[in-house]
């Protein structure tokens, strides 16, 4: 099927503009963060196109997405858009998303597509949006055509038959645009179900001033990290880091780095789920952090509390294990930027320096819902929205499109958050390159709730890592059984 590019003009790059990180970025990838954005009423039922072929100058004729959708009547066009519709007669595609650069990307898309216009609504960030989407799925109507989802939640919606297989709409030709790890995250049973815009390679943010003051070396392994923690503690310095209960996606990334392969799920076998929670790798991670907590070298501040940001900015923490979107999230929260910034970033410490493992935490994608009555146009939106990423649409994100990762303006960018360090080149790009992908459960929110429940017990010492993980394993297994899954324990 000839989808994608035919109708779209490529969005002009404005290289003269410096790579600007937008201030006050929202709490993107962390579903468990507080959602402060005003909740916007559900946009009406999405729907359908009246357009024939690409009548726009951007289209080069031939088979176009809008042409193969059923005509969209005027009444079916979504209204109450947060953006301005440039071409009112075009097929209108509704979109939910909270990415801070969405307004820029949506306007650029609308400008370049006379036959398809995006009607964007911010329906809340992370779980606030997922709850609305789930409700719309249960109701059978009310979902948008295109929706922003984090990779760890894709399976949770796939099982509800809520997402369209984009490979049927020409997504396969974008395969070469993504790394193998990213492809694993967005695919199921060989089909692509979402197009990613940003990822969350995980690295070690550290305070250079504190490291200098206490004569610490940047740790390359977790053993070195623990040694630095001891050194800081005995010299009366601040805590080396944070091990929160309320950020299960982070804990999950740490489990994965140590070698845990928690879930095995494929929509090919919808009702079958592999669960391996109580494993040696996860126990090692819990024991390691709980040991540091018990020695008083690591704090346990919840990362969705405002206290955490204040601890970070006031030098109470020497390091912060964070994903690439974190600096954007912290911008505007009292952090110095430019040459005066005390923060630097380094590769994530390893369990085994000889065979490093890199992980991902968060990352957003765009998927087409099965409720969409204009799936062709919607697929075009999902694929093209961030298909031509530039400095403005990127903001403070780490792009998943490999060609953007290779663009020299991106590779050589100096990040003011890290005092002008070439963070992309030195840390984020190599981390993303080495990421192998992860598999997630079809009920990720429930899993995360239970991980948090376990961490409140194991971190406080009320329960051993062994007891906590084995309890979590049985909780998840019995939940899965009650939901109708056949559970395979590895």
């Amino acid at each position, binding site marked *: 099927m000839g989808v994608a590019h035919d109708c779209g003009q490529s969005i002009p790059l404005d290289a003269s503009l410096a790579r600007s990180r937008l201030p006050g970025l929202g709490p993107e990838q962390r579903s468990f963060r507080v959602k402060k954005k005003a909740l916007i009423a559900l946009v009406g039922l999405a729907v359908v196109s009246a357009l024939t072929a690409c009548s726009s100058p951007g289209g080069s004729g031939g088979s176009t997405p809008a042409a193969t959708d059923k005509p969209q009547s005027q009444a079916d066009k979504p209204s109450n858009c947060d953006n301005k519709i440039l071409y009112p007669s075009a097929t209108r595609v509704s979109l939910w998303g909270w990415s801070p650069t969405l307004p820029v990307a949506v306007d650029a898309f609308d400008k370049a597509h006379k036959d398809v216009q995006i009607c964007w609504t911010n329906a809340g960030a992370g779980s606030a949006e997922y709850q609305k989407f789930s409700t719309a799925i249960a109701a059978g109507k009310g979902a948008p055509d295109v929706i922003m989802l984090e990779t760890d939640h894709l399976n949770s919606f796939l099982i509800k038959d809520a997402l369209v297989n984009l490979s049927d709409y020409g997504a396969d030709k974008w395969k070469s645009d993504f790394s193998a790890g990213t492809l694993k995250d967005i695919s199921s049973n060989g089909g692509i179900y979402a197009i990613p815009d940003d990822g969350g390679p995980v690295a070690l943010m550290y305070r250079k001033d504190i490291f200098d003051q206490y004569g610490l070396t940047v740790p390359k392994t977790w053993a070195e990290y623990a040694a630095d923690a001891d050194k800081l503690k005995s010299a009366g310095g601040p805590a080396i880091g944070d091990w929160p209960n*309320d950020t299960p996606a982070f804990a999950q990334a740490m489990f994965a780095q140590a070698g845990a392969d928690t879930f095995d799920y494929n929509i090919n076998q919808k009702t079958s789920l592999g669960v391996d929670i109580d494993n040696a790798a996860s126990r090692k991670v819990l024991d390691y952090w709980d040991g540091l907590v018990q020695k008083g070298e690591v704090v346990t501040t*919840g990362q*969705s509390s405002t206290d955490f940001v204040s601890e970070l900015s006031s030098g109470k923490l020497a390091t912060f294990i964070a994903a690439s979107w974190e600096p954007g999230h912290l911008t505007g929260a009292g952090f110095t930027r430019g040459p005066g910034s005390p923060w630097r970033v380094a590769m994530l410490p390893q369990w085994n320096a000889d065979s490093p493992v890199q992980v991902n935490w968060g990352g957003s994608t765009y998927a087409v819902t099965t409720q969409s009555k204009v799936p062709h146009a919607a697929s075009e939106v999902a694929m093209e929205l961030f298909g031509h990423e530039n400095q403005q649409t990127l903001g403070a994100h780490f792009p998943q499109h490999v060609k953007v990762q290779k663009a020299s303006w991106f590779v050589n960018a100096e990040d003011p958050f890290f005092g002008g360090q070439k963070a992309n080149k030195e840390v984020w790009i190599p981390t993303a390159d080495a990421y192998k992908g992860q598999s997630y459960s079809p009920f990720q929110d429930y899993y995360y709730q239970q991980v*948090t429940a376990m961490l409140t017990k194991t971190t406080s010492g009320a329960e051993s890592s062994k007891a906590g993980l084995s309890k979590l394993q049985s909780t998840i297994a019995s939940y899965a059984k*009650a939901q109708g*899954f056949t559970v395979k324990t590895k």
Partner: protein
Amino acid sequence: MTGTGSYTVARPSSPRATTAARGKSTRPKSIGWLFVAPFGLVFLVFLVAPLVYAFWLSLFSKGLATGTTFSGIGNYVKAFTDTEFLGGLLFVVVFSVVLIPLQMLVSLAAALVLDAVTTKLARFSRLMIFVPYAIPAVIGALMWGFLYSPGFGPLAQLFGLFHASAPNLLGSHEVFGALLNVVTWQWSGYYMIIIYAALQGIDSSLYEAARIDGAGPWQIALRIKVPLVASALVLILVFALIGTLQFFTEPQVLAPSSNGAITPSFTPNMYAYNLAFANSQINYASAISFALGLVVFIGVYIFLFATRKKGRIV
């Protein structure tokens, strides 16, 4: 003219006949329905219909990997053996047992003082005690979240003066007291006004008689005022019991700041909410809601029955 005349004439002569005539004519009856209609319609559409629908939903079950099946009372059996639901229920019951006497004591004391003192300061204090009730619960909870913050709230500054670090009031062990404080602060003013209004309705000649018999101010307060406002106290108790068993807003708002201490099943209402909207288990969530409703109904019924027997009030 004639019709009206005969009607008015007929009325005083034979009231029984009039009643019979009214019974035959449907007009006055239908007018009655018309008056009730605006309320009745809203009541049916927004309360009765959703309740019936939710009950209907609660009789089915649906797993993520299975279709919807009729399960009868299966969800209810599951609810009353579900440790998360029972744990939440235990929490709200214990919370009620501690909170309600505390709240009543605070509001009764405030009302008695304000009733005895009649200066401008008293009127100002009355307003100030009432103000927390006027603050929306969400805003109140957010505000307390800030006040409790060990990192940058006033506690941090206070403890900083003594070079100590502030306690985490939203930790697993402290959260009970923290919530107790928020709810007492929010509702005591409202209950105080109810008691105060009841106190104002007492005939002051009673006080005069008591004083002549040699009663002091303490005796007047405890032996005359308190027994006479007992019916107001029972009313407050019922309000507080229903409200606390359905505890939701404050823990829900404070949960993100609690680092996991406030779990998704912290109270039965939070559990139902999370089941329905986070975990897509709408059928089971309906059953949890009805199970909670049943517990509240039984609790309040037992309470009203007990108080009726003892004090012959209400």
